[in-house]
């Protein structure tokens, strides 16, 4: 939809404070993840660790295009989106460390959590499912004539699922106020895009659903903001679903354990050298937008303090009490009962005397 240069971009209306805000969210995302790496190496992270290194702009720029009342559904590499929507560093750290007072009380891993009040709904691991769920969330906005929009992220891999297809098609037919963001970061675990689809580009899929599609540079935070804002505005006007493809690159493995042996030599280094979203944005901030390097360093310093403080708080929290595992599967009953072999000493072995025959069994080979 090559209208670039013709239309007036929404980012041109961002205040200087907002421009620096975008930087702050990207920096917080990266610094927080770096802290998580340190905690992971100290074995304080209970499960796996998932990085969004090199993808901070696509999360932050897209989430920034939403209003407070809007709802998004993040993926494993959308820490930045969640932070923009109000998730706090201490919540993220507690969640990774499986603490009792983490958002999911130790039930779920990493950034799989949500808060409908703040406007984000946690994903589950089966990919594509959240497109259907967000279709229902935004269907409700439409039914109730609420001035709210939803945004759902999928990776290049999730576009191959049935849930993606059914969800986007359903939402398109119902003209739900939904923005579907395909983050094309090159790999689904180890599988490159060339093994995921025969389509030339994911944005082409929009045609099949009868919705507009637009592709943007996912490592240019302002371009991401602009393309998302256009789709959000359309949804808010009642014009239904849009599909956005953000071109980015996953510089770390699927998770921290993944050695990325499947990546061609030099590819990661080239992206790091030539197309780091934070480096690129800092150059624009200090160049065309006239910020001083002190402004940038000030943000870095504040972010570091926030993450340090959050780490101290999170580390002090306790692991959950075991019995909490049985609470809250249903509203009614509020808790499951412990199984008898976990209850006091009511087991048969505890209350019956040992039979005389116990311990006297011999196999036929054992002779005296």
């Amino acid at each position: 939809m090559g209208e670039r240069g013709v239309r007036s971009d929404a980012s041109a209306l961002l205040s200087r404070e907002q421009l620096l805000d975008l930087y702050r969210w990207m920096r917080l995302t990266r610094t927080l993840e770096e802290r998580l790496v340190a905690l992971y190496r100290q074995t304080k992270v209970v499960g796996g660790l998932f990085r969004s290194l090199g993808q901070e702009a696509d999360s932050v720029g897209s989430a920034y295009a939403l209003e407070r009342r809007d709802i998004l559904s993040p993926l494993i590499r959308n820490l930045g989106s969640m932070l923009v929507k109000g998730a706090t560093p201490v919540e993220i750290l507690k969640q990774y460390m499986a603490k009792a007072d983490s958002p999911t009380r130790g039930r779920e891993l990493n950034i799989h959590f949500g808060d409908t009040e703040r406007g984000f709904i946690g994903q589950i691991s089966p990919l594509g499912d959240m497109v259907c769920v967000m279709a229902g969330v935004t269907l409700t906005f439409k039914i109730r004539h609420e001035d709210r929009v939803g945004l759902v992220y999928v990776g290049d891999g999730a576009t191959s699922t049935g849930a993606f297809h059914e969800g986007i098609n359903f939402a398109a037919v119902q003209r739900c106020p939904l923005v579907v963001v395909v983050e094309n970061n090159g790999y689904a675990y180890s599988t490159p895009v060339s093994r995921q689809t025969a389509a030339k580009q994911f944005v082409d899929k929009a045609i099949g659903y009868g919705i507009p599609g637009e592709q943007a540079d996912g490592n240019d935070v302002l371009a991401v903001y602009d393309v998302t804002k256009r789709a959000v505005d359309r949804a808010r006007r009642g014009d239904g679903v849009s599909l956005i493809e953000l071109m980015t690159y996953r510089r770390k493995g699927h998770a921290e354990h993944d050695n990325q042996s499947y990546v061609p030599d030099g590819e990661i280094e080239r992206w790091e050298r030539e197309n780091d979203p934070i480096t690129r944005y800092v150059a624009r901030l200090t160049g065309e937008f006239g910020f001083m390097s002190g402004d940038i360093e000030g943000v870095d310093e504040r972010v570091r303090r926030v993450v340090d403080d959050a780490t101290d708080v999170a580390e002090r929290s306790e692991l959950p009490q075991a019995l909490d595992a049985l609470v809250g599967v249903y509203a009614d009953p509020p808790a499951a009962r412990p199984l008898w072999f976990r209850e006091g000493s009511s087991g048969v072995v505890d209350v019956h005397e040992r039979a005389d025959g116990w311990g006297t069994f011999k196999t036929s080979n054992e002779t005296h």
Partner: protein
Amino acid sequence: MAEVTYLEAIREALFEEMERDVNVMCLGEDIGAYGGAFKVTDGLLDKFGETRVIDSPISEIAIVGAAAGAAHMGMRPVVEMQFIDFVANAYDMLTNYVATARYRAMLPCPMVVRGPSGGYVRGGPFHSQNPEAGFVHTPGLKVVYPSTADDAKGLMKAAIRDEDCVLFFEHKYLYRRVKAEMPAGDHVVPIGKARLAREGRDLSIITYAATVWKSLEAAEQLEKEDGLSVEILDLRSLAPLDDEAIQATVRKTNRALIVHEDTRTGGLAGEITARINESSFAWLDAPVLRVTAHDVPLPYAPSLEDYVLPQVADIVRAARTLAAY
């Protein structure tokens, strides 16, 4: 008051709940303008309009997922599977997403997934299934399967009002074959409570859905021909199971026969047998026996389907075996 069929009873419940609560909505394939493949939702579109009665594409994953999203936002969606066999398409969404939502994310998911189920109708492999066991096995879901018209209405109203997801199995053989007078007023049957369908002294049949009626027929025959007094417990709710009612009948008659239309291996009869062993072994005068379908996909030809599914004669034979212990 005039009698209504099992199918009309479900429709009455939907009408009443949609009138009572503006958040109740229906979602499914061909449910609006056409009124549903079995006409359960007939008339809903005219009365409540197309924002609350939504004809969907053929997308079980999407409609179950969208119902979950709407439920998070405070709606009370009722999703129709055109045939319950197709709920398999939404198995991931129900078991991975919906069933875990409250536990892992403190996200309420009050919704109903309902649909015509069961055999004895020459429907073949994809219009006859009883897939309840897989959902009973999933923590976070509730499952009901009524056998009478008044329970169909009362349980549907309870399901719509429940704070969690309820799978509501409707037996299509019973849709137009059983009738009842509807109790006056706001008739709600609590989920998790079994119903004593017949009182007896000599042995207990524990069953649900269409085989409640087969068991009643068998009980009449056993009384007439053998002088046996058979008690029949209609479970109604499969998750949660009414352990108290199961224990009470087993401890009363000391002999238990479990009857269901679902296939044998991994079917609910195994679970109920285990619970009886754990809770009431000392009361048993005979091993717990089961009458179930054979472990094959359900075939189409009458001679084949009748052979695979439990019949009255099978129940009679099993009850005699049990009584003879």
